[in-house]
């Protein structure tokens, strides 16, 4: 089966079959969209919450939550998905190093919050998530079934 890797800041879409995989989500958030009827699946690997056009003008749309979610939706639609059928799942947003948090909310937590806010804006239901904590994750979306498998080092994989 075709397996496509989604690196930091990237968005990838597959149709009919295959697996979208992102390895090593730390404070980044992996977001998947799935249309069970059209069998279209999309994944984004979100790096930070808010885009910074002045400092990072040529950023990939998938890098920041506020640009990633609209781009993820339109790329899924371009492959035949319908917005009203899309469902979302999230993984990541951890805080591996406690000393990284410079204020009350860790960057991982800020990323989760920003992604959820964007999905709510587009009225896309979040039907599964495995987020926060202090460990890295691997996330895989199986296009045919819409199942997302999340793996944590040294632990059993879980389905969300």
């Amino acid at each position: 089966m075709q397996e496509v890797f989604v690196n930091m800041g990237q968005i990838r879409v597959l149709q009919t079959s295959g697996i979208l995989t992102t390895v090593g989500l730390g404070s980044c958030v992996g977001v998947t969209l799935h249309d069970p009827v059209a069998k279209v699946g999309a994944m984004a690997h979100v790096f930070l919450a808010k885009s910074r056009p002045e400092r990072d003008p040529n950023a990939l749309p998938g890098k920041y939550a506020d640009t990633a979610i609209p781009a993820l939706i339109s790329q899924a639609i371009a492959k035949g998905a319908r917005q009203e059928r899309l469902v979302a799942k999230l993984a990541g947003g951890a805080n591996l190093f406690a000393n990284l948090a410079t204020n009350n909310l860790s960057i991982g937590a800020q990323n989760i919050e920003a992604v959820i806010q964007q999905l709510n804006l587009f009225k896309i239901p979040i039907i599964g998530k495995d987020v926060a904590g202090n460990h890295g994750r691997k996330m895989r979306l199986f296009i045919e079934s819409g199942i997302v498998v999340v793996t944590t080092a040294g632990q059993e994989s879980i389905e969300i």
Partner: protein
Amino acid sequence: MDAKLDFLRELGNIGASHGTTALSKMLHGERLTLVVPEAEMLSFSELGNFIGETEEIVAGVYVRMTGDAEGHMAFILPYPSAVTLANMLTMGSDTELTEIGKSALLEVGNILITSYINALSALTNLTLYPSVPDIAIDISAAIWQSILVNAEIADQVTLIKTIFTTPNKIELSGRIIFLPTEAGFAKIAEVLGLEEF
């Protein structure tokens, strides 16, 4: 560009040799060999490939550098090396990292990184402070990514990496990473009279 990278390699060399000397002393004189430091300027999309898709487990000690110049520093060891080093420090013979082993690694990583920062400070006359250190044991990509996210990388990142190994027949190797912020790098270059970069 080449001159800038040369300069960065030299910084890495000075910093890392102070760091590994400190480490060597703690290991009762166990000799550590430094591989020539690598300095790289990578774009955001190149970083994805650099981090890779491997699921290797590593131990990473992270320290943020603040003061006149800011940056991010990490001491990263493959898991088997982390176990070896922890055993050497605690006189243990464990096959996995224990809580005591982890805190020994945290302490050693802290000393090594602080020595690196002190060397930079002495070289530049800049006041540089290390933050409180922390340690994580996880997939290599997740550790790297967390550091890069925290550094809020924009389009490009300068990375100075020094690898060390030991000539003896034990499994011990690791990396010392220095990731100056753009402003932090400019400041260091400026005080050393390298404005032309």
